[in-house]
Structure formats: structure tokens, C-alpha cells
């Protein structure tokens, strides 16, 4: 591969990786919000567990999930600076259960596929 092709390849790799991760991020977020957390603590926790999530992606995602009534939020103003805490709603809990089952099914099948050569 020459330089040009290498750059093209790297760009494709980056896009495909992003695409692959994008779907899993929602599940990761839902799984961490069984107890209330604010945005940045979520970024840190996911990061510490090897799930890289950019704040610029995660914050809008949290709002979207709230609009879909999977999360609810409350502003915590008693601390030195106000923080918005998110937590799963009843609907969100059901969704988490269903998506978890889906994820297990996918991983099981994918592992099978990838193992076969």
C-alpha cells in the first residue's frame, strides 16, 4: 500500500470502529445508570472500564435518552456547583433488560461466527 492507500485504509478503519462502538454506547450508559450519576462521572467511570466515551457524544446522548423517557434527571444544587443527575426510569429498566438479552445473543452468535474461520 502506498501512503495514499494507507491513509484511506486508516480512515475506513476509524469509521468502522466508531460505527461498531456507537450502538454499544447506549447499552453501556443504561447499565451504569441504575443509580443516579451526573454526566462527567459517567464519562470517567466508562473510561476507567475501557469504554472510551467522549463527553461531547455522551452529553447529547443522555438528553436524547431522557427525551425517549428511558432516563429522568434532577438538578443537584446543594453542592458547590450544580450537577444534573440522570437515572433509569421504569421504562429504562425494562429497556436495559431487553437490550442486555439482545447483546448476549449477539455476542454469542458473533463469537460462534468468528471462531469458525
Amino acid at each position: 500500500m502506498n501512503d495514499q492507500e494507507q491513509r484511506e485504509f486508516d480512515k475506513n478503519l476509524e469509521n468502522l470502529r466508531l460505527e461498531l462502538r456507537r450502538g454499544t454506547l447506549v447499552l453501556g450508559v443504561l447499565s451504569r445508570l441504575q443509580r443516579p450519576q451526573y454526566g462527567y462521572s459517567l464519562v470517567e467511570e466508562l473510561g476507567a472500564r475501557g469504554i472510551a466515551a467522549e463527553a461531547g457524544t455522551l452529553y447529547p446522548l443522555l438528553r436524547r435518552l431522557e427525551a425517549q423517557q428511558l432516563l429522568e434527571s434532577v438538578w443537584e444544587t446543594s453542592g458547590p456547583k450544580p450537577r444534573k443527575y440522570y437515572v433509569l426510569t421504569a421504562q429504562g429498566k425494562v429497556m436495559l433488560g431487553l437490550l442486555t438479552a439482545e447483546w448476549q445473543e449477539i455476542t454469542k452468535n458473533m463469537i460462534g461466527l468468528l471462531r469458525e474461520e
Partner: protein
Amino acid sequence: MEQKQLDMMERYIHEVVKRLPVAQREDVSLELRGLIEEMTKDGPEPSDALRGVLLELGNPADLADRYRGEQRHLIGSRFYDLYLLILKIVAFAVGIGMLISMGIGFAIDPPASFAVALGKVIGSLFSAFAQAFAWITVTFAIMERCQSFRKATQEEFVWNPDDLPEVPRQSALIPRSSPIASLVFLVLFFAVINSLPWFIRIANLDPSVLVLNPLVPAVFRRVLWLINLTIVIDMCIEFVRLYYGVHTKPLALISISLKAVSLGITLYIILGTGIWNPDFAYQIGQLAQKEFGAGTTVGKIWSAVPTILAVLSVVGYGAESVGSIWKAWNLQLPKR
């Protein structure tokens, strides 16, 4: 954070939230302020950290896009090709139409110098192109909005393979050249008819020129907007034909009903407005008498012109309607 950093942070937040709906702005501002403060705290050098944090969050416009969660565009991919095609057709026709009408204008009333003429041509072309561009863009933007509105409201609509239309026979396809030619003609007609009052005014300035005007100028100016309306309706029909690209029943019904409106207006203009100059018959009779000695015949023919035009319009409309109905109902049958 120092004041300078605070300023930069506020500027960043403002750049994000100004692109969001008003109701969300305060909430997002608070959230982002908390986030940025938290992120800068972790950095090694607080004074330098903010820059890094903002770079990590990225371009404010992109961040706002993520918050909105939707692509914002005026004209989407569904209409974009058609939009470009129409722009090209109209630009071409407007250009030619303007040049012709200005050419006639210059012939009647020669400009003071070449520079003046050139200035007029450039100025008029520029404003005509700008207008055409604006109107086409607005029309397509409205089409796009209607499309997304339909998508949003018809979420329950289930697409069914049984609804797929038959592949049209070759003979049912409308060749693109047909609506394009009509559009070019309509734009030319539009340009010429709208510069008529101007020609007449200029021609009247010169007493040595005998102006025989079959129309009453005052009435013509009053109904000019109606004439333009029929041109616009006819253009809409051609756009729709270009968009469908094949004779179908809905297309036939749309064009027949739109044409009925345009026919109604045309008949009103021809028969109901007193637009025809009653003296014209006399003037032309005089002229004909002088030239060929057949004045009264010409006068009589002239008085029948409105009726003839009206009959021709109705007959034309009838023939076209029958034609498009026949095509829609017969040509669409699949080839078996």
C-alpha cells in the same frame, strides 16, 4: 479559572447553545459549564487545560448538531438533483429571455454608450438570476419541509410491496426534453410579456413612430399579474411532469385541474377585462385600406379575435386533457 478562561468558556458555550431551541439553552449551558469546569480540573496545568478541553469537545457547531440529533439542511438528497436541473434550465431561459428583451429595448431606445448598455445588461441579468434562484430555492425548501412533515406524521404508515407501481412502458415515459422545452418557452414568454409595458412606454416617447397597440395599456398593466399567475401555474405543471417523469393517473389529474384554473383565468383575461383596444380595429383597418384596400375585412377579423382565442384555448385544453387521460390510463398497462 481566571477571568480570561471564563470568558473563553462562556464564548464556547454561547456558540453551542445559540444553535439550539430556546427552551433547551439554559439547561445545556448549565450542563456544559459544569462539564468544562470538571474536565479542566483534571488537567495538569489549569491555565492551559481549558484550551485542551475545548479542543476535545470539538467545534461548537458539531456539538450543537449532536445535541439536536438531526441533520439540518434546506434541500435534501431526494430533491437535490432535480433542484440543480431546474436551476440550470431556469438560469438558461432567464439569461436568453433577458438578452432578447433587452436587445429589443436597445433597438428601440439605443443606449448612450456601450458602457451604459453593458452596465444595464450585467445589472439586469444579476438581479434576474438572483430572483430566479431565490424563488426556486424557496419552492424546493417548502417541498423539503412538506416531505419531512409527512415522514414525521406518517410514522405508522407501513410500506407494502404490493403497492409498488408497475414498471412503465417505454411509451409512457415523458421525455425530459418535453417539460424542459416548455419551461424554457414559459420563461421566455414571461420575460417578454413583462417587458411589454416598458417597450410601449419607450416607443410612445417618439412621436414619429406609429404605435399600433392591440391592447389597452392600462388594462394590460392591471391584469399583468393574472397573466403571470397563469404562467406560474403552467410552470408548476411542467415541474410536476419533470418530477414524475412518466404518465400516471395522479399526474393527469393534477395537470388537468391546474390547467383548468389557468384556463379560467385566461378566459377571464380574454373575454372579461376589456383588454382589447377597440380603436385597434379601426387603426389597422385604416392601414390595410391604405395598403391593400381591404379595410373592413381586417376590421371584422379583428373583432372576432377574442372569441377565436377563447375557443382555441378551450379546444386546446380539451384536447390536452383527453390526451393526458388517455396516456395515463392506457400506456401505464404493463407489457405482458
